[in-house]
């Protein structure tokens, strides 16, 4: 290998890693009061990375480090998602963690978890994939428990840690079996092996390895039998960290699944689509049904995020270019909507705490009464995010769902109107009914915000929160109004997923 290769396409990862350590060292040198500037430095670094990712590597494929990292359209799209989520979270944290004397560690951990997610997006080797997963997970375990005087935050961190490390162990076990079967850890090498010897993938060892991998990724994606940690963690963790977890960390499971599972499915042409269909249907129905009965808004958002994972998992049901592109667009949209919604919950928390220092259950539904009058920008943000999550046009949520449902429908019905697969059609119908159900619990919160009388004075919304919410609102509506560039980007990425 030529060691003089040009690492310029990995500049965002290098920049953020250097920045993370610089933030820690700077934190040692400056006084506690001037630590507030670290948030601005981190946000600037992330913004620079976003600009770089948008401008580079969207076409073609370049591989680094003995083919263990690749930069291609798929990796760039997901890097964009992770960077936007972490930008929103960092901007909101400037207010949330203002005057906290541990800010240096906080920003360093956010930056490192972003780097971990980006490594997963680029991983072309099981070792790189595992290391990236662990870097992102371990940083977020600590972030979830960052309010160490708050029992709920620590409990969230403990549950997240135990389930997360169990899932990593299962994933590692699955990877060890794959290595045993194929003798390589390089993902294209594994695919080649399986396409030459499909019987190896259908052997009992191959099936076992696949089950372990699906379980390991499923925990991160919070698909239904593996979802138990998600509501507890999202509810207990600080709201800004919940936004990073729900919007960013969850997509890490999807990009890993796109790289490994879809390629393997395409290579061995195994008929496991039905399994994924069942998983997706159970996930979305469970998430929506349980979300209806929640009074804690963070918990409701957590269950709605499980339901959204179910919609995105529909991409695995038909694995056509359009379905995967739909999954990617919905993942991008969900990152903006859910990230923004958790930040908006942080504003409500700020509002309730400024009324009463010792308030409990700050995200309870009753605190949302009259939010439209008390905090108009936050309420507008919630309004947009909830309608987008329910899939109302023009929004990113609508475009993503449209692509996904349409891609399955054209597999079920030929253009001349002949029904070829009734179970695919049934899946689309169930998914649309689910969307209808979800409107109920979103509309209930909107009723609280705009119809019920306010319970307190109008507050001044902090500028950092407003900026973060507005970025998410503009992104959500922007993708809905001008979907073409994003759909093209997702289509290119889908070609990589399918190995075309």
């Amino acid at each position, binding site marked *: 290998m030529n060691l003089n290769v040009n690492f310029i396409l990995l500049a965002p990862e290098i920049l953020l890693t250097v920045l993370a350590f610089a933030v820690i060292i700077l934190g040692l040198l400056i006084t506690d009061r001037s630590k507030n500037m670290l948030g601005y430095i981190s946000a600037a670094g992330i913004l620079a990375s976003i600009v770089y990712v948008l401008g580079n590597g969207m076409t073609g494929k370049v591989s680094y480090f003995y083919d263990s990292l690749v930069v291609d359209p798929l990796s760039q799209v997901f890097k964009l998602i992770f960077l936007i989520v972490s930008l929103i979270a960092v901007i909101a944290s400037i207010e949330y963690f203002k005057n906290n004397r541990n800010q240096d560690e906080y920003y360093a951990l956010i930056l490192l978890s972003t780097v971990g997610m980006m490594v997963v997006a680029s991983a072309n080797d099981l*070792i790189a994939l595992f290391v990236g997963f*662990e870097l992102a997970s371990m940083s977020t375990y*600590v972030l979830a428990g960052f309010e160490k005087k708050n029992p709920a935050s620590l409990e*969230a961190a*403990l549950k997240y*840690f*135990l389930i997360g490390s169990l899932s990593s*162990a299962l994933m590692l076990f699955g990877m060890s079996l794959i290595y*045993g079967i194929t003798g390589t850890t390089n993902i294209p090498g594994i695919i080649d092996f399986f396409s030459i010897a499909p019987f190896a993938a259908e052997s009992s060892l191959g099936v076992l390895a696949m089950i372990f991998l699906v379980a390991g990724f499923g925990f991160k994606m919070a698909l239904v039998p593996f979802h138990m940690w998600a509501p507890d963690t999202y509810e207990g963790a600080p709201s800004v960290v919940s936004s990073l977890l729900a919007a960013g960390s969850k997509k890490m499971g999807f990009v890993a699944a796109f790289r490994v599972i879809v390629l393997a499915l395409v290579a061995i042409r195994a008929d496991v689509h039905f399994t994924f269909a069942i998983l997706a249907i159970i996930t979305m129905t469970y998430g929506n049904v349980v979300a209806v009965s929640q009074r804690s808004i963070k918990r409701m958002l957590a269950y709605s995020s499980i339901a959204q994972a179910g919609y995105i998992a529909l991409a695995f049901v038909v694995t056509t270019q359009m379905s995967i592109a739909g999954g990617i667009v919905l993942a991008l949209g969900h990152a903006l909507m859910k990230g923004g919604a958790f930040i908006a919950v942080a504003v409500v928390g700020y509002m309730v705490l400024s009324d009463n220092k010792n308030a409990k259950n700050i995200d309870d539904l009753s605190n949302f009464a009259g939010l439209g009058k008390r905090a108009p920008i936050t309420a507008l943000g919630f309004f947009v995010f909830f309608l987008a999550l329910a899939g109302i046009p023009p929004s990113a949520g609508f475009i993503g769902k449209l692509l996904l449902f349409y891609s399955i429908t054209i597999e079920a019905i030929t253009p001349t109107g002949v029904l070829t697969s009734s179970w695919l059609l049934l899946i689309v119908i169930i998914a649309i009914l689910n969307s209808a159900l979800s409107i109920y619990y979103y509309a209930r919160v909107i009723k609280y915000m705009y119809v019920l009388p306010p319970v307190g004075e109008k507050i001044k919304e902090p500028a950092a929160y407003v900026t973060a919410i507005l970025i998410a609102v503009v992104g959500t509506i922007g993708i809905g109004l001008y979907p073409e560039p994003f759909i093209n980007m997702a289509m290119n990425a889908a070609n990589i997923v399918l190995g075309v």
Partner: protein
Amino acid sequence: MGLYSYLLISIIIFTIGVYGIITQRSGIKILMCIELLLNSANLNLVAFSSFNGNATGQVFALFSIAIAAAEAAIGFAILVALFRLRDTINLDNINILRW
């Protein structure tokens, strides 16, 4: 000893780990069981590496040992913080968050 004996030992360790995670209620014991799971995978990797005749598996095992150490450190840090606040690490008592 052939490949199968190593795989058998690894499966036994894995099963002990899973059994412990299901039955134990103390945070520390569950952490120990997770270490067992990780180490059974490491044993697999090294055994397969020797069987396949390339070193990739051993490199993977080294990476995962380093990661397991970092993971244990974070786990103990969370448990210590929780113990200071609640005076317990028994998972049955850690139940503020529930639906």
